[in-house]
């Protein structure tokens, strides 16, 4: 993991002091709300329905056991004993007081964390594959490059007041677990024919009211050119992105309006001018940052562990958890483990302070003190010896963290919705709760197989409904909550936009509709065809018929 040096510490501490001064000026009335609002947003502090909300950055979803303990402490001391892990790999607190926020930020700074650029029209937290550095299928660990981008984009003199927010995602594996094609810029680490590692660069993706899948800018960009190329991309966007209408201000609209070829031409022209200016950091700096992400010293172990086999044969829930919540690690005899924050009937992404403390303890005991947050709102222990899996699972299970549903229908992404968010039109969480209660049968879920349901309570799409195999979008219909059903989306390497199936439903109706859609799939699937493959083969009509009837 990256560790701060004196420069990093000085910067974050200066930021806390600056915000403390701003809050003080606001409380005294020296700053109006209009002046203060953008300043608090740049520190991740929103005003929501019931209270302020503080969004703390978890850079590229990586945190240490010590940092997780601090997150638990903040939840306990300043909030209501819980936090919400988000689709941006961040954590949100729902009840902080404005007057205490500088203290929270100081406590976070003490463990090398902050809330910088978690909101505002700037480059946001760079997101990545939650299994980075652990997954057996990756070309290279994307996190050193995410950290380079974090530093380059922090307080950027030119790109801190963009037309709109800007999201960059990086993956190091061909299987895209970071939804890179749904980002303003997506970077995919790959090897060229000469065996060198570089990036495929994608641009212009995004969700919101105009969902767009990113287009390819460049097949292969050498790593040493990463920052100068990003700088050229951002400069053209900053100059020409629309500022007259915030719904048309994202880069996806600019790229769509000028065409990807023209955007590429302008970026390339600018890049030629700046390639040799020292934007890209010295090689020693890349090496310094890479060293922090060196693979942990895991011993090569036997791939079979008798403890695992015994419990697997004796306990069906463990067997299911093993199948769904663990995955292949780079180092034989190890696995990465997904801790589901999706208990059936629970709130997707929420964790109590006690659960956070437990995960920190388990990370210390079993995972090199390392933890990840996934964009699917789960926690990950990236480096676990297989022989430790039975002990780990039983401790998780006792704490309500052992739900064996990773990647299955009940592993639902849901935004906070109208239960908390002032932008929402409808609630999201209760829909997720009702669906997971309706499908509360692990055998049935495993029979259904991989199926991603994603729920947003408004068109801003924080719940990624456009990318759901089944997407649900809440809309306000004359003051009533109404839910639209979308099918066929994907956030993976085969990214696709989900399409609305037909008229919307009320709260009970949408859950029934989901069940009907699943029934159609089970009836129509061929061999081991997944839901998404079956939908792509069948098209919407058969689902429409089942959900809405024939007339």
């Amino acid at each position, binding site marked *: 993991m990256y560790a701060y040096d004196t420069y990093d510490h000085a910067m974050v501490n*200066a930021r806390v002091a600056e915000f403390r001064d701003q809050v003080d000026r606001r409380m005294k009335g020296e700053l109006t709300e209009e002046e203060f609002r953008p300043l608090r947003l740049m520190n991740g502090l929103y005003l929501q329905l019931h209270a302020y909300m503080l969004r703390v950055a978890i850079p590229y979803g990586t945190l240490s056991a010590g940092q997780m303990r601090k997150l638990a402490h903040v939840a306990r001391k300043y909030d209501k004993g819980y936090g919400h892990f988000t689709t941006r790999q961040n954590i949100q607190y729902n009840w902080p007081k404005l007057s205490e926020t500088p203290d929270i930020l100081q406590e976070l700074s003490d463990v090398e964390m902050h809330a910088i650029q978690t909101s505002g029209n700037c480059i946001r937290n760079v997101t990545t594959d939650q299994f980075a550095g652990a997954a057996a299928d990756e070309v290279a660990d994307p996190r050193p490059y995410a950290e380079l981008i974090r530093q380059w984009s922090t*307080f950027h003199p*030119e790109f801190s*007041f963009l037309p709109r927010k800007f999201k960059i995602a990086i993956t190091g594996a061909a299987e895209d677990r970071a939804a890179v094609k749904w980002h303003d810029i997506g970077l995919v680490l790959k090897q060229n024919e000469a065996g060198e590692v570089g990036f495929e660069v994608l641009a212009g993706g995004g969700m919101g009211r105009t969902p767009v899948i990113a287009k390819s800018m460049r097949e292969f960009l050498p790593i040493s050119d990463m920052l100068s190329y990003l700088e050229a991309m951002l400069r053209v966007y900053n100059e020409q992105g629309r500022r007259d209408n915030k719904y048309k201000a994202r880069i996806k609209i600019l790229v769509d309006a000028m065409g990807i070829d023209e955007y590429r031409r302008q970026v390339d022209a600018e890049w030629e*001018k*700046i390639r040799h200016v020292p934007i890209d950091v*010295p090689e020693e700096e890349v090496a310094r940052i890479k060293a922090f992400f060196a693979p942990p010293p895991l011993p090569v172990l036997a791939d079979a562990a008798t403890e695992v086999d015994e419990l697997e044969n004796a306990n069906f829930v463990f067997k299911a958890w093993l199948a769904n919540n663990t995955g292949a690690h780079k180092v034989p005899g190890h696995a990465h483990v997904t801790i589901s924050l999706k208990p059936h009937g629970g709130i997707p992404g929420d964790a109590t302070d006690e659960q956070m403390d437990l995960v920190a303890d388990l990370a210390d005991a079993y995972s090199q003190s390392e933890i990840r947050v996934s964009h699917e709102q789960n926690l990950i222990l990236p480096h676990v010896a297989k022989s430790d899996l039975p002990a780990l699972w039983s401790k998780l299970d006792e704490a309500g963290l052992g739900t064996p549903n990773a990647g299955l229908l009940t592993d639902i992404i849901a935004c906070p919705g109208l239960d908390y968010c002032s932008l929402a039109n409808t609630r999201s969480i209760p829909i997720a709760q009702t669906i997971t209660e309706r499908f509360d049968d692990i055998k049935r879920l495993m029979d259904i197989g991989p199926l991603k349901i994603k729920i947003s309570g408004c068109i801003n799409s924080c719940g990624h409904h456009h990318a759901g195999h089944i997407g649900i979008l809440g809309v306000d219909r004359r003051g009533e909550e109404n839910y639209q059903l979308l099918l066929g989306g994907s956030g993976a390497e085969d990214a696709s936009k989900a399409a609305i199936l037909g008229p919307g439903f009320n709260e009970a109706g949408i859950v029934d509709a989901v069940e009907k859609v699943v029934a159609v799939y089970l009836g129509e699937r061929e061999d081991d065809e997944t839901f998404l493959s079956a939908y792509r083969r069948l098209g919407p009509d058969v689902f429409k018929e089942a959900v809405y009837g024939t007339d």
Partner: protein
Amino acid sequence: MVLINLTGIQPTGFTLLADDVQPKEGENVAVSVERLLAEDSAFFDTAGGVGAVITTGTPYADLDAIAGKLAFAVIEFPAFGDGRGFSLAVRLRKDFGFKGEIRATGPVIPDQALFLLRAGFDTVDVTSERKTAFEAALSRFPGFYQSDFGGQTSIAHARHTVGHTIGHSGEGHRKAS
């Protein structure tokens, strides 16, 4: 209004010239980009230093024709969040090697002081009640991750330069290069 001096430059005294008024002999004048694009060389010969009043909507390509003739530039922010103003300053410094004064006007906020300096601005026109906050903001951060036009090299470079300390010299873009 007061002028905040970010870089220690000698600020330009000038007249903001209405579009139908001709400059006096040797007078420093600031006029719109549109007018500068339309004026012939007689205008430049008569006036002393000529500055452009650049709105954030000015296409970057318009700078091509005039940047070489400018003694100074005034970039007008219609709102503090209009970040095009920063890119315009960067363009002037970077693409045209512009060494003259760049001034920011409009409702920029004190918390942007270092962003302005680092993007290449020398001075900011602000309401007098913001002076203290602007000056306080200038010394808020010891360093940044980007090399900039205020003369500071990035933390990334400083980390690997023996004996290097970070901090603004204040005259970066006017140093011989």
